[in-house]
């Protein structure tokens, strides 16, 4: 009696990355907070009210949180983004591919033969896909099915234009006309999309600039608060009371910058590529800059303080 075959579960690369990065991030968080005790838990801001809030303002604690988020999101977002980039490259090459194919068909080749010739050219990531489609056709699969199956994971725009290749094959004698029409349309639409992307990129720099301005203004605010605090501490300002110590203020501004940066980066991703993953990568990059800034902002403040005759 034959044994029934065991069904093997295949875990996708994305899931594996997400699980391993979550595990590493949790491990780092645990090591930093429990084992190495990098955070000072006495530094807690108590916001009184009907529901009192305890806010840890120690920079090391917030840095640990930033590191946690960085490890958690970066690998997955990077893999997704690389995947998107590859698909986008294929999309950009489609007009050239259609143009070449139209030329070959006009020269008298059939569509499958033209695809075979095209698979020998260097069209970057598109070459691999054409090779796969040609193999399927050689193995006896229908041209239309072979193409749609090979390109099923690509972007909608790529898949829309790949359909025209199958249509050209089905149209017989009009194939060259079909392909040259499709290639000119693809080129025009691609040029239009590129123009749209270029005009939207301005807003990405505006968002980046606004976050940097926020950080610089925060440094000046910290300087102002430190000056006031020092004046009161030395007994020079009996009229004044201090709302937040410089360290508490730094923690509060650090949190705010992080909270503002997250949705802003999602907006960047949406503007640049229409995807969130690119935004997540921008967020990881900005979070590191923010962490470095707030870890070293004291030097900037003390440099500004040195100009004052306190």
């Amino acid at each position: 009696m034959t044994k029934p075959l065991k069904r093997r579960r295949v875990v996708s690369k994305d899931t594996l990355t997400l699980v391993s990065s979550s595990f590493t991030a949790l491990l780092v968080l645990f090591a930093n907070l429990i084992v190495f005790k990098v955070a000072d838990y006495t530094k807690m801001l108590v916001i009184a009210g009907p529901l009192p809030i305890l806010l840890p303002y120690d920079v090391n604690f917030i840095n640990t949180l930033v590191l946690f988020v960085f490890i958690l999101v970066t690998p997955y977002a990077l893999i997704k983004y690389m995947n998107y980039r590859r698909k986008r490259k294929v999309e950009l090459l489609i007009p050239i591919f259609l143009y070449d194919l139209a030329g070959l068909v006009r020269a008298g080749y059939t569509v499958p033969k033209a695809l075979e010739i095209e698979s020998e050219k260097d069209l970057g990531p598109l070459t691999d896909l054409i090779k796969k489609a040609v193999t399927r056709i050689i193995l006896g699969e229908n041209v239309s099915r072979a193409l749609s199956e090979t390109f099923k994971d690509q972007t909608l725009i790529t898949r829309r234009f790949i359909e025209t290749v199958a249509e050209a094959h089905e149209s017989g004698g009009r194939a060259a006309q079909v392909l040259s029409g499709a290639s000119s349309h693809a080129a025009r639409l691609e040029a239009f999309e590129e123009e749209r992307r270029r005009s939207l990129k301005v807003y990405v720099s505006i968002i980046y600039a606004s976050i940097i301005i926020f950080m610089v203004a925060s440094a000046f605010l910290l300087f102002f608060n430190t000056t006031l605090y020092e004046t009161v501490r030395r007994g020079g300002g009996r009229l004044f009371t201090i709302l937040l110590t410089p360290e508490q203020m730094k923690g509060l501004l650090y949190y705010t910058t992080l909270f503002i940066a997250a949705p802003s980066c999602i907006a960047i991703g949406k503007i640049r590529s229409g995807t969130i993953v690119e935004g997540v990568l921008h967020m990881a990059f900005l979070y590191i800059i923010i962490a470095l800034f707030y870890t070293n902002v004291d030097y900037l403040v003390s440099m500004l303080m040195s100009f004052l005759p306190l």
Partner: protein
Amino acid sequence: MGFSHLAYRVFKGRSIYNVALKNLSWLDSYLTYSGLKISLRRYVATIVFVTILSFSLSLPLTYVFHAYILGINVLFSIVASIILSLIVSTLILALLIYLPVFKAKSKLELLETRLPYIVSYMAVLSYAGRNIESIIAKLAEKGKLFGIEELAIRMLRRIFILGQDTARMLMDEARKTPSVVFSSLLESLAGIVETGKGLNEFLESEFMNLLRNREAKVKEVMNSMAVLMEVFISLVVVMPLVLTIMLLIMASLGAVALPISPLQILFLIHFIIAPTVAVMIVLMIDSLVSKISG
């Protein structure tokens, strides 16, 4: 038996339903394009049923709230609960009327952004020698790629199953669609079916026209984006900083006079208001960008 069917069975032939049907007949075209698979009669019956149901459910609930929880006298409780229930049922009525309009408009907006790709594909199909009926059949087959599957299948069904004349069917669809661009495309296609000439040339010129329209749309979106960016910088970057400085100064001069602790206000600004505003603006940016990306 579904809810809409029950509503129709209950209200069919009643005067309230007839009045509603007469006044809401304009919803028919929106229902067709909204993707809600329900006929006008059943949808109107559902609107009437849900509105009456919401009034009759909210009336005792609001009365209990006013009379027993707030402790207001009976007469005031009755008046207040009637007013509140009327408000609730009016809101539900408005929501139900607006739902197909909103769904149809967002679907058609998406269709308009994809239209250059659809027309390009149609042009390529016409180069291959296909006639309009065959093009519609191909669109129905590959409709998922272009987001036109439902519409193409409906048109195909009207031609090949119901046996309707293609030109008349296209004119009828053009009359029904709330999208001006799509309506004019269908009307022109109907004209071409009648004359039987120039499908290639028409689709080619229509493709160019659609690209020009999209260019204008991109400019429009760019203007809105500029305004949105100004709002973003003012509310997300400047506002928290200005308010922090103000609160610091006010608190340093003595926070006793303030009705709420400045620390609480700071927490509210930095942890709730600024991130919420940022998220809202991101959502607006997303909806703006999706208007121009096919």
